């Protein structure tokens, strides 16, 4: 596999950047139908990851995802902290003893997303980050099944993430705080879906650049 944990510092860095750049917009989303802390929560986690990024770069994926998961779990708090924590810890578990290729990664990521579904007792269509994560997992699996080239697969992931994020706008929220707004939750993109999409797109960007960079 082309991608090693040595990439993590730069991945964390672009995630930090995209959240920072879009902070105001996302906070407005979370204030509209949530409680407004989503960006602050994520940034606490990202800050903790930045502090660890040197160490993370030296680990294998199993250990790195485990560490990222535990860090998100203990630094973020709120719904998103437990969910991202769950995602990475589950990915770490699923990755044990397996060489990483697109097929395997698609399975690992799907295991992570399944764990999020279980933890959140939620599924697609409930106006949460899962409306990005579930289709992205599916897109990865599809790419692997179709043996598409990595750059194309990455491009599909980004498109899917954006479409998933956009799809939350008109949904009725049935999970998380926004569910208490009932019909008033419609018309606003879910903050967690938005940040998932932003982070995924930022990762895709780095990875795509990495692919085309001279070795």
């Amino acid at each position, binding site marked *: 596999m082309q991608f090693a944990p040595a990439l993590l510092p730069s991945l964390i860095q672009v995630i930090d950047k995209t959240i920072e750049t879009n902070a105001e917009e996302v*906070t407005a989303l979370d*204030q509209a*139908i*949530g*409680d*407004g*802390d989503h960006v*602050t*929560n994520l940034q*606490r986690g990202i800050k903790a990851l930045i502090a660890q990024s040197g160490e993370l770069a030296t680990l294998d994926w199993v250990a790195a995802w485990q560490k990222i998961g535990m860090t998100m*779990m*203990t*630094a*973020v*708090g*709120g*719904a*998103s*902290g*437990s*969910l991202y*924590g*769950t995602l990475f810890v589950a990915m770490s578990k699923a990755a044990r003893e397996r060489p990483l290729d697109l097929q395997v990664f698609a399975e690992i990521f799907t295991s992570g997303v399944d764990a999020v579904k279980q*933890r*959140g007792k939620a599924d697609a269509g*409930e106006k949460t980050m899962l409306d990005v994560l579930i289709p992205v997992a599916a897109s990865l699996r599809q790419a692997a099944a179709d043996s598409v080239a990595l750059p194309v697969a990455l491009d599909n992931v980004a498109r899917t993430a954006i479409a998933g994020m956009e799809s939350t706008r008109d949904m009725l929220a*049935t*999970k*998380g*705080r926004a*569910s*208490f*707004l*009932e019909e*008033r939750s419609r018309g606003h993109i879910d903050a967690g879906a938005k940040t998932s999409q932003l982070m995924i797109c930022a990762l895709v960007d780095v990875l795509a650049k990495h692919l085309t960079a001279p070795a």
Partner: protein
Amino acid sequence: MKKFINSIDNLLDESLSGFAKAHADIIQLNTQPHFVRRNKPTAPGKVALISGGGSGHEPLHSGFVGSGMLDAACPGQVFTSPTPDQMLAAAQAMENGGGVLFIVKNYAGDVMNFEIAAEMLDCPHDTVLACDDVAFPKTHSTGRRGVAGTLIVEKIIGAAAESGADLAACKALGDRVNIATASMGVALTSCTVPALGKPTFDIGENEIEMGVGIHGERGRERLTMRSATEIVDYLSGIIDDDLKPQKGQSALLHINGFGATPLMELHLIYELASRFWEKRGVNICRSLVGNYTTSLDMAGCSITLSLLDEELLRLWDAPVHTAALRWGC
């Protein structure tokens, strides 16, 4: 927004440190991870009661740690659920042979984080979900939220645990109090989360938000401002429909301020709400009026009715010694 703050980053730490100093006779603060715990050893075999949640609702929950109530409380960032390592460390520190009961307000973040902690805990444990907010039906997709009634659950389980009730009994009692307790809130203004510096929602000079939670999330509907009696009748009506108290039923009436509403107005609300239930033959035999489950600096209040049988009344009256509730000692 003007707040007494040095920096957003250490607001919680400095505040918790002040809280711990001000109440050093009954509690102490554990850091890394953060939890507030009782000072004094508990009786061997006592069920350890652990609660927690986002900060900004003070005195809930840290103000309810002490003899006769909680063993520890885990404070999260403002309006953000605490993290599993906090609950786990608190549970491990306080467990004393009777197992651990988590008391959790029903919000996705709190539920999931406590759940993770519970999964990691290797001693008998159980969880009571506080879900007293009747702004939404029982069938709501995520269940009802835990709001001001949570302290009643904590007080009553606290008294039972103190007098030796076991984990199963405490859990059953908590669920029973929960079912017998209903709350409805109304906001006159939004609150302002320190990290954001502006009100969470806009609301007009002539509008109120009915059925709000305690995080500045909007409520179930926006109405025009109206008289205190009309507001109380609206809130109490929904509570009454839910609990359907019998004539002669004894109850605790709790008027909870969200932070910026003067006591004078809360007592006025108490007057009107107690008239509401007296008219229906309910015997309001206990009261609690004040800022207990706040939403930072929000103006508004909630009404909570909790039906009490003899056992619950006795447990409510049992001695309690915490920063925010104290009687009988």
